């Protein structure tokens, strides 16, 4: 056992390195073989979600790749670049799928996916992620209640902006007693998304004719505070 401190240190270091190397190699290998299935299942999950809010018959383009990148916008509640998917039928814009965030929920952000038809009416809304109280505020989620379907076929022309409130505040939207803050935030976010759509319709409709390559629009967003 005549091992000098240097030898000991070296041995320890080499052992650690060998284990790190084996670990990294294993990870690299599994990353390689799972990458394609992960991408495929994410794509599938996304398409399944789109299908819930926009019927497949409403479009015939590659919805996932026909996108417009939107800079951060106060109306959408976004702090980063978001993506809008454009649905086209026979090369005519049939609708837009927007991502919006409500910051004034009961706890944390509520992420929404909103499909708006070309005529400005809502095709469907879904909650992507939320941290509302289970069993109380979570009825905005389709797995816990049908409330979110109240937005189906709503539009700014059908219901004036002042009616876009929960009934308690004098609006037209139902809510559950004991959880008003959550639906209030969602209604407000959907209204703002509709306003965003109206203000930026032209940009959303004219951008990206190429359906295979996503491109970044350079046109400024209308109706935004800098």
């Amino acid at each position, binding site marked *: 056992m005549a091992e000098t401190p240097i030898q*000991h240190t070296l*041995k*320890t270091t080499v*052992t*650690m390195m060998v*284990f*790190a190397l084996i*670990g990294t190699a*294993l*990870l690299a290998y*599994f*990353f390689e073989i*799972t990458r394609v*299935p*992960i991408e495929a*299942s*994410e794509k*599938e*999950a996304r398409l399944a979600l789109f299908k819930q809010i926009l019927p497949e018959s409403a479009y015939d383009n590659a919805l996932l790749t026909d996108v417009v990148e939107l800079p951060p916008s106060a109306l959408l509640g976004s702090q980063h670049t978001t993506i809008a998917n454009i649905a086209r039928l026979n090369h005519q814009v049939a609708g837009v799928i927007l991502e919006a965030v409500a910051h004034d929920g009961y706890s944390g952000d509520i992420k929404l996916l909103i499909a708006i038809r070309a005529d400005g009416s809502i095709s469907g809304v879904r909650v992507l992620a939320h941290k509302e*109280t*289970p*069993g*109380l505020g979570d009825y905005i989620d389709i797995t816990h209640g049908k409330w979110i379907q109240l937005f189906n076929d709503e539009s700014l022309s059908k219901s004036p902006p002042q009616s876009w409130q929960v009934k308690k505040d004098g609006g037209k939207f139902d809510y559950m007693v004991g959880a008003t803050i959550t639906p209030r935030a969602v209604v407000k976010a959907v209204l703002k998304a509709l306003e965003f759509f109206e203000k930026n319709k032209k940009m959303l409709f004219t951008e990206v004719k190429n359906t295979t390559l996503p491109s970044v629009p350079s046109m400024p967003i209308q109706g935004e505070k800098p």
Partner: protein
Amino acid sequence: MTNQYKEIALNGLWKQNSGVVQLLGMCPTLAVTTSAVNGLSLGLATAIVMALSNGSVSPVRQFVPSEIRVPVFILVIATLVTVIDMSLNAFAHPLHKVLGIFIPLIVVNCIVLARVESFAAKNDAVPSLLDGFMMGTGLALVLGVLGGLRELVGKGTLFSGLDLVFGPAAKQFVLTVNTDYHGFLLAVLPPGAFLGLGSLIALRNWIEIRKTAKTNAASDLSQPALIN
């Protein structure tokens, strides 16, 4: 030999159960058990990680100097968890969405490192593998029971979300005990986790106490002279 395996299994499932006796790995125990399916799924994932990490640390244990054993063990566990995380994401995507952040958290679950350190570092590969699996299974059972309890009391259903694991066909196995039940929110919220776990620990202790009382009474009768 078979006795040793029996002992390991008994330890993991009952005597040293990580969920209600050792009380290690409380974070997932309390956070994920909002339904039976969630609890069981995470428990099984943990069991697989424990079996694999125990099984892979044991054969290389003599090459690992004691100064760096903990970093090496953590490295092995982290690698395995990441592999499972990626595989779940690729081949069971809906389940991955449900268990989300808890899968990577298996890395920091004390029970995994505890078994590697206290068992796999001293024993052969096969018993180590079994120990990890049995300890994990014990935990999975506790998670499943606790999740089932909270789900039943909180939402009045059992096995909801089974379709996320086995596909839409499994939806028919979801039990709704009472369609008129409005739910008891407390059970699903964090306090319900503590109350439920407390009840399970009490139940296990009660069974143990009764058992020892019985064996004591039995030995009292057969060999009265030896007691005292």
